[in-house]
C-alpha cells in the first residue's frame, strides 16, 4: 500500500480527480481586488469569479483554500488544492518549479508614491537612487520589475500589499509598486499623502496565469484552453473590467465607511 501511494498512479491527473470528487479546490491569497472579503466575510473578487466559472464549466463545486503566500507552492505540491488561481505572474524562474497555463489576465503595474518624499521627483529615474526605498508584495511582478528598473534603490518585500502601502503612507518608503488599479484606489483614499507616479501610466505589465503541478499535461491543457475560450468570447475582459476599471461597481460590497 505504501509503495503505491508513494508513486502516483499513472494517468491519474488532477483533472480526473476533480471530476471524480465533484469539487475543484482552488488555492488563493487575499489581494485586492483579485480576491478579498466582503462585509459578510465572504470571498469576492476577480479571481473568485474566474474560479467559480471554471468550476461551473466543469460541472463541479468550487472550494477556496486561502493560504499565506509563502506556503502556497508547497501546499499545491502537497495536493492541498488542484490549482492556484491567485494573481500569480509568470516568470521563467518560477516556471522551473511549477507549470503555468496561458495568461488569463494582464495586469499593469502602477506606482503609489509618498507626496512628501517623492513629490519633487520629475522622472522615474529619480527613483533609481540609493536613498530611495521601494516597497512591494513579496514575489510579485512589481518586485522583479523594481529590481531591474531601480537597481540602486532599496527594496522592501512584504507578505501583503496593504503592509507595503502602509509603508508609503507612514513615510518609510518613497513608493510602492502594485498592480493597477490598487495604487489609484489608495491615492484616492489618502489624497494628501499619496499620489500615483508616472501620471498613472503603467510601469510594466505582468502576465497572470493559473499555477499547477508539473507533469500534469491533461490539466494544463484543459485550463489553458478554458482561458483561450473565455478570452475569445470576451468574458474574461468583461469580468476584468468590472473589478479593475474602478471600484464604484463593488465598493459598497466591501466598504462600510
Amino acid at each position, binding site marked *: 500500500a*505504501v509503495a503505491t*501511494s*508513494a*508513486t*502516483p498512479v499513472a494517468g491519474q491527473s488532477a483533472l480526473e480527480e476533480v471530476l471524480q470528487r465533484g469539487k475543484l479546490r482552488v488555492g488563493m491569497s487575499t489581494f485586492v481586488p483579485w480576491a478579498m472579503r466582503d462585509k459578510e466575510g465572504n470571498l469576492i473578487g476577480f479571481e473568485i469569479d474566474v474560479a467559480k466559472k471554471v468550476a461551473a464549466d466543469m460541472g463541479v463545486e468550487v472550494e477556496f483554500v486561502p493560504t499565506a*503566500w*509563502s506556503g502556497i*507552492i*508547497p501546499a499545491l*505540491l*502537497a*495536493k492541498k488544492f488542484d490549482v492556484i488561481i491567485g494573481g500569480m505572474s509568470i*516568470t521563467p*524562474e*518560477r516556471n*522551473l*518549479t*511549477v507549470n503555468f497555463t496561458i495568461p488569463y489576465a494582464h495586469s499593469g503595474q502602477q506606482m503609489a508614491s509618498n507626496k512628501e518624499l517623492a513629490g519633487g521627483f520629475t522622472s522615474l529615474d529619480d527613483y533609481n537612487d540609493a536613498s530611495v526605498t521601494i*516597497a512591494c508584495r*513579496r*514575489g*510579485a511582478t512589481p*518586485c*522583479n520589475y523594481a529590481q531591474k528598473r531601480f537597481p540602486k534603490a532599496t527594496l*522592501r*518585500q*512584504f*507578505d501583503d500589499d496593504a*503592509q507595503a502601502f*502602509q509603508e508609503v503612507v*507612514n*513615510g*518609510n518608503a518613497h513608493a510602492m509598486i502594485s498592480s493597477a488599479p490598487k495604487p489609484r484606489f489608495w491615492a484616492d483614499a489618502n489624497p494628501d499623502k499619496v499620489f500615483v507616479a508616472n501620471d498613472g501610466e503603467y510601469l510594466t505589465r505582468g502576465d497572470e496565469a493559473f499555477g499547477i*503541478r*508539473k*507533469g500534469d499535461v491533461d490539466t494544463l491543457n484543459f485550463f489553458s484552453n478554458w482561458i483561450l475560450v473565455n478570452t475569445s468570447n470576451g468574458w474574461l475582459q468583461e469580468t476584468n473590467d468590472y473589478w479593475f476599471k474602478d471600484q464604484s461597481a463593488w465598493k459598497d460590497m466591501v466598504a462600510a465607511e
Partner: protein
Amino acid sequence: MQSRTAASTPRELRVREEVGLDVRALTRTIWQVAQAVLIFLVLGVLIWRGAQAMEYRWQWYRVEPFFYRVIDGEIIWGPLVKGLIQTLKLAAVSGFIAVSIGFLTAFARLSNSIAGRIIAKWYLEAIRNTPLLVQLFLFYFVLAPIFGIDRFWAGVLCLAFFEGSFAAEIIRGGITGVDHGQYEGADAIGLNVVDKYRFVVIPQSLPLILPPLTGLLISLIKHSAIVSVIAVSELTTAGLNLISDTFMAFEVWFLVAGIYLAVTVTLSISVSLFERSLNKTKR
C-alpha cells in the same frame, strides 16, 4: 564462627579494581543506541518518501548562488549569508536590550515603589497575553510611525520587549533564589540597598541567572525569524524572498532550518563548554 575484628585497609589504599568489561551491559547499550538510530532513520525515510510522493523536483544544483557568487574573481555574498549576518546582529542588539529591560523590570517588581510594580506588572501581562506576531504588527505599524522608529529598530525593540519579559522572570527568580539569610547578613552589617544588591545579592544570583539567560538568548535567534513579516532582511526574510522568486520552497526551508540549527547548536555547545570550564576553575 566469624572473627571478632577484621584487619582493615585504609580507604585511600583501596584502589578501585577493574571489574572487567561488563559485556552484557555493553551489548545492551549498543543495541539500545542502534534501536534509537534505527527509529530516527525510519522517520527520516518516511519524510523523504513524503517528499517523493509529492513528486517534488529537488533542484539542489540551483542553491549555490544563494550563498555566494563569484563575479570577476570577487566573491559576492548571497542572500542567505547576508541574512544570517543580519539575524546575528538583530539577536545581539535585541538580546542586550532585553537583558537590560529584564533587570529593570525585575527590580521594579521587587521594589517598594507602587508605580514601579504596577507598570512592570502591566508590561509583563501585556507581553505575555498577546502573540509576538501581533505585538510586532502593533509595534511596527502603530507605534513605530508614531514615534518615528525605523524598521530595524522596531524589530529590535519589539523582540527586546518580548524576550525582556522572560528575562525579567529569570532574573527575578535568580534574585529571590538567593538565601534569605544573605539579605539579613547584609542588613546586619549596615549595607544600604544599593550595596546590598551590588555586593551580596547580584553576585550570588548570577550563577542562578546565567544558564537560563543564555538559553533565552539562543532562543532569541530562533524568534528573530518573526521579524521577516516587517521585511527586516534577516535570514528568514531572505529565505522567503528566495522562495517567492524561485518557488523552490523545500530546498530553501531545509537550508534555512539547517543554518538556524547549526547556529543554535554551536552556541549551546560553546555555552555549556564555557560553563564547565568556569565550574572547573572555581574548584
